């Protein structure tokens, strides 16, 4: 009598439960007669189980492939009394969501849940006057390309040829267009989709115009109050979904299996004219209304406290939600009246803003989820209409993962008819921002996040209520994105370096019209100073941040550890981080073997077979490549970054802001003129998909914005990522040695700070028990974190060394390169454990330290592949803007002896004292991340 998804449903999240419910108890032993099959009928490896109530069969979160059509075949053995099962073929079919970027130009794959080619004749969801127009694209759309504009997206009145005022909300593959006023029934409208719409790597949409004619469904507005059904409320005894009612179930290793239960909430619904559609009844739930759910006490993998509580979770209807009641498709056509065996179907589509009561939790959780398809049944009983809907959604977690979430909502018509909706009289309050007010160092490509305590009215914000202005108060073109209770002000073009900007919150109000007092905050972008030092890579995942010779970095010692063979799980992207901003037009993804400056190629027998189709997302100082289809386990691929054979920035070479070609062999020198050289070439093998949570943790903030290896005048010192060295002794020919500056006046010693930058792609695995830890202790449980062995670059420090008591020479170390070594037995691991209620990361880093460009007159030094061992420990916390912060420090003193060879030997003993290496690794901005 009910299935989820419903037949022909598109855009079904891949983590959805697949449910088939019968009117009677099924034959439990025959659960295997319900099969999940591919479009060609090939059985899919998934096991059906009978629901607790015994009337349904469920596939719990089968590992479906994105963008794929599946069917569910139901054999009669499961319910021999069932009268409406097909004798052959699937009972229903559906198509999963594909939300990953694609190499092709974006296309429209659904409007109102319908294939656009079929929309005019057989809409899956008819368009009503009150409808929000919902589009699904084939891949994520660059949010900067979605604005209410005829070249982008615009709804035009066919009678007047004038734009229809509407709020346009975009998020990933979804775009919702919510007309400010209801549309006119029978009136022709045109939805214009222009070529300004583009995907994440700039492919433009082929313009299209879609005629729309809303059906007349409205008569006298019939208002209903729908409220969450409580334990003692009337309604059917059994669920139709086989799952707990009013519960959001989240299942992701990052936080384990957890649930959030809807609190008592009520929604005002408007029913359309019941006769208008000759059966189906349209209904609307107006935007601005809220459901409340119990908070999440977030624990990593359900065990390690994260220190993050959300408080109650609020779910606000972001656009007018529309739906309809219609006859059960599994009901015999002549069956009258409707009965419990085949209750009326409900189809509700909604866009929601999710946020949390607790500011910290809100910063992490706030998100907008578009296109939630809640389908279910409505059973009239005991004087109420009990609507039970099932929805699956992709729920953003901690800003680094998306969890499949299955949401069963049961609402009943309020028999008392008493409005139970609390009126909102409080204006939105700004809780946090990224960047914080009056800070500098904002990446120029990132969006600016403003986090409120409730969602704001996007129409007012777009109408000038929220503006980005430059130092002279001129408006900077930007779009405003919705992210739950947060917005992102995303400039259409990257901001200028070293510039001051303002976010002007002139007219911020919630959906109820409560306006906040206007305010403005300012921030500055990264201070970028010119440099002649070539760009290089700081992290390459999979791989190592250098060209390789004999399995280790070119320019290192031959005795250096070799990297283990590189693999990449099928579901993870390639990530490359650079030491300075890229010159955007030097980045070209190869579409054939040997072409482009960024090449991702499939190899066999040492020969390129083909370029891997995919999307290259270009950021200011990083690249991300997402293949169209997951990596094939066992297949060999090669990532190549082209640098050219000389330092000049020639065509078809990757270049940085220095004007030089990139250098990928930093151990051979990172000074002026060292650009070019060997291409970076990383061979890796595809691996099975990982259930771990992938995150690129980057040293943030960092000092060396221009990647020059020195602290240049405009660059701000960032104490969060630095190593403070002391000179503790000297001997031999070095008769004196000291640092001229002191970067840590809090200690009696003089320290010189090397400011660090780098990135560490990590995979947070599933909970382990009885964990031996790198510091010699152990933990009953831990989250293992696989750390990709990458490179940190450290800025130069200057040491005044007196040689043989004759001359004092100021020596710059120049760029120091700290390569992370992989343990011989496996990947580098860290562990997150519970330390007195605080999640704490512990890892042991074995490093090679190189200062290739340090030059001592008439001498040589041994800062080449100099081993260092560090135990790093630090808390895992969440910043006010929701980013994960891992603030590591070394737990013990580390001695670094620099041996000098000249006429005679000498030595300078340095100490990296306990806690004097600070490494703050942050996740990328949750919402404002560069597109």
């Amino acid at each position, binding site marked *: 009598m009910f299935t989820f998804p419903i037949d022909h449903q598109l855009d079904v999240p891949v983590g959805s439960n697949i449910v088939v419910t019968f009117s009677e108890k099924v034959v439990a032993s025959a659960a295997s007669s319900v099969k999940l099959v591919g479009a060609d009928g090939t059985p899919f490896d998934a096991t059906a189980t009978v629901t607790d109530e015994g009337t349904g069969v469920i596939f719990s979160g089968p590992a479906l492939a994105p963008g794929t059509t599946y069917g569910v075949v139901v054999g009669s053995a499961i319910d021999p009394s069932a009268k409406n099962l097909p004798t052959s073929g699937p009972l229903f079919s559906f198509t999963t969501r594909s939300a990953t970027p694609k190499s092709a130009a974006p296309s429209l794959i659904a409007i109102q849940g319908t294939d656009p080619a079929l929309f005019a004749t057989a809409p899956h969801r008819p368009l009503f006057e009150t409808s929000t127009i919902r589009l699904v694209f084939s891949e994520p759309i660059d949010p900067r390309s979605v604005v209410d504009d005829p070249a982008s997206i615009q709804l035009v009145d066919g009678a007047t040829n004038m734009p229809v005022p509407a709020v346009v909300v975009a998020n990933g593959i979804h775009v919702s267009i919510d007309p400010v006023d209801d549309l006119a029934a029978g009136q022709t409208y045109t939805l214009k989709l222009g070529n300004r719409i583009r995907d994440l790597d700039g492919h433009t949409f082929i313009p299209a115009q879609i005629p729309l004619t809303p059906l007349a469904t409205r008569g006298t507005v*019939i*208002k*209903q109050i729908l409220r969450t059904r409580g334990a003692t409320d009337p309604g059917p005894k059994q669920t139709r979904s086989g799952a707990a009612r009013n519960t959001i179930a989240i299942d992701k290793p990052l936080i384990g299996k957890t649930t959030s239960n809807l609190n008592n909430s009520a929604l005002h619904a408007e*029913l359309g004219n*019941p*006769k208008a559609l*000759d*059966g*189906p*009844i349209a209904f609307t739930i107006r935007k601005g209304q809220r459901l409340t759910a119990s908070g999440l006490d977030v624990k990593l993998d359900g065990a390690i406290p994260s220190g993050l509580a959300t408080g109650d979770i609020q779910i606000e209807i972001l656009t007018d939600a529309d739906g309809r*009641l*219609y*006859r059960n498709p599994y009901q015999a056509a002549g069956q*009258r*009246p*409707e*009965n*419990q065996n085949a209750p*009326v179907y409900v189809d509700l589509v909604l866009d929601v803003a999710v946020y949390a009561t607790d500011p910290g939790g809100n910063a992490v959780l706030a998100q907008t989820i578009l296109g939630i398809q809640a389908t279910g049944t409505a059973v*009239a*009983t*005991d*004087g*109420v*209409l009990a609507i039970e809907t099932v929805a699956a959604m992709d729920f953003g977690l901690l800003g680094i993962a998306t969890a499949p979430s299955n949401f069963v909502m049961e609402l009943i*018509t309020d028999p008392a008819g008493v409005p139970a909706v609390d009126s909102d009289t409080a204006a939105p309050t700004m809780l946090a921002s990224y960047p914080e007010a009056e800070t500098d160092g904002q990446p120029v490509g990132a969006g600016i996040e403003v986090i409120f305590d409730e969602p704001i009215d996007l129409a007012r914000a777009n109408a000038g209520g929220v503006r980005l202005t430059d130092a002279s108060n001129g408006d900077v073109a930007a779009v405003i994105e919705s992210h739950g209770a947060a917005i992102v002000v995303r400039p259409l073009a990257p901001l200028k370096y070293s510039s001051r900007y303002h976010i002007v919150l002139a007219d911020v109000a919630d959906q109820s019209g409560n306006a906040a007092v206007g305010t403005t905050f300012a921030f500055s972008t990264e201070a970028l100073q010119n440099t002649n030092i070539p760009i290089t890579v700081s992290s390459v995942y999979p791989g190592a941040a250098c060209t390789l010779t004999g399995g280790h970095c070119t320019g290192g010692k031959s005795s250096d550890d070799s990297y283990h063979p590189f693999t990449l799980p099928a579901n993870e992207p390639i990530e490359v981080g650079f030491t300075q901003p890229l010159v955007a037009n030097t980045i070209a993804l190869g579409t054939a073997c040997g072409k482009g400056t960024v090449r991702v190629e499939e190899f066999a027998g040492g020969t390129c077979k083909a370029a891997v189709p995919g999307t290259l997302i270009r950021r200011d100082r990083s690249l991300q490549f997402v293949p169209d289809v997951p990596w094939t386990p066992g297949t060999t691929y090669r990532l190549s970054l082209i640098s050219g054979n000389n330092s000049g920035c020639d065509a078809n070479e990757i270049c940085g802001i220095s004007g030089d070609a990139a250098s990928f062999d930093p151990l051979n020198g990172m000074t002026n003129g060292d650009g070019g050289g060997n291409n970076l070439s990383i061979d890796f093998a595809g691996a099975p998909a990982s259930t771990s949570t992938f995150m690129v943790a980057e040293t943030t903030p960092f000092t060396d914005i221009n990647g020059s290896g020195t602290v240049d005048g405009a660059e701000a010192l960032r104490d969060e990522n630095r190593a403070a060295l002391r000179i503790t002794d000297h001997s031999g020919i070095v008769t004196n040695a000291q640092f001229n500056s002191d970067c840590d006046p809090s200690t009696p010693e003089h320290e010189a700070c090397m400011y660090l930058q780098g990135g560490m792609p990590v995979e947070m695995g599933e909970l382990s028990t009885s964990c031996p830890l790198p510091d010699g202790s152990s933990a009953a449980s831990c989250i293992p974190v696989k750390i990709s062995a990458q490179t940190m670059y450290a800025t130069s420090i200057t040491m005044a060394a007196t040689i043989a008591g004759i001359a004092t020479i100021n020596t710059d170390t120049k760029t120091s390169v700290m390569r992370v070594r992989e343990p011989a037995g496996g990947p580098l691991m860290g562990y997150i454990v519970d330390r007195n209620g605080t999640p704490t990361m512990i890892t042991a880093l074995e490093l090679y330290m190189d200062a290739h460009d340090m030059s001592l007159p008439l001498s040589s030094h041994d800062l080449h592949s100099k081993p260092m061992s560090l135990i790093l420990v630090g808390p895992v916390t969440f910043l006010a803007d929701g980013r994960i912060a891992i603030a590591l420090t070394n737990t013990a003193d580390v001695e670094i002896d620099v041996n000098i060879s000249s006429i005679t030997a000498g030595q300078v003993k340095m100490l990296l004292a306990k806690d004097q290496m600070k490494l703050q690794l942050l996740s990328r901005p949750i919402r404002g991340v560069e597109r």
Partner: protein
Amino acid sequence: MKALIALLLLGRVAYADGGEIDLSDDTTDPGAAKKDEPAPPPRPAKDKGRPGFSGHRFYFRAGVAQVIPLSSSRELELADVDGAASLAVKNGPIAGSGADIASATIPAVIIGYTLPVLHDRLSIEAILGTPLNVKFHATGTLANESIAPMALGIPTGVPALGPELGEAKAIPPVVTLVYKLLGTEHAFQPFLGLGASVLFQYGAKVTNPTLIEVSQPTMSIAPAPGFVVQGGFDLRVHKGWHLRGDVKYIAGMLARARVEHIQVKTPSLPLFDTVEVGTAKMSVWVNPLIAQLGLGYDF
């Protein structure tokens, strides 16, 4: 009542005149006894021993009976309301609703037996009639307003039922104990009676067009007992032939009708099209007044 008094007076006059028609043989009549004469000895209880008593203990009277229900009803009550109907109506009485039963005229026969007691003044009678066609009518809001005008605030389009509800065949056998007020010698015999009756009904069916549009609901009526008071007269017209005028009132007769599986169209709610209302229960105080006129014979 005036007619009854007139008949009584007429009986008295006939006795006094000693006319051909012997209206009374009641020697116990105080008006007829000779004050100076000793009372005659008691006679043996022979059927023909009493003046004017024919000796026939059985009698019948055949004629027509007008059954006039003095009905009143409780509010129609709904039960087992579930499904879509529960959005429009609730279990329990429908305010202002009611039902009544229409009058009917039927052939009826009275069969009686005069008991040999109390100077043959006591009889036991049974009234048998042809089955009574009972028609139930809706009254009040049940007739004039939709029983389910709205569901979830949506007009259902279910119309008012109108007056017609249903009908049934009823057999209301009545057994009474009748006491003749005058001696058996009187040609005019007024009497009073008390007794009991049970209304048996069969063939009950709903006839309301709205209620049978989709399907025929099941209607059943439980037997309804009542007690009877009776008054009337027998007028001997020739030998054993008598004219009978008789009025009975059956009190306390509560007919409980139950209509199950009611389905109604919801024309304004095409999504549902039809809803099953559940069960309707009607409790009608029938309390009929039965006026009967007949001719019969003692034998």
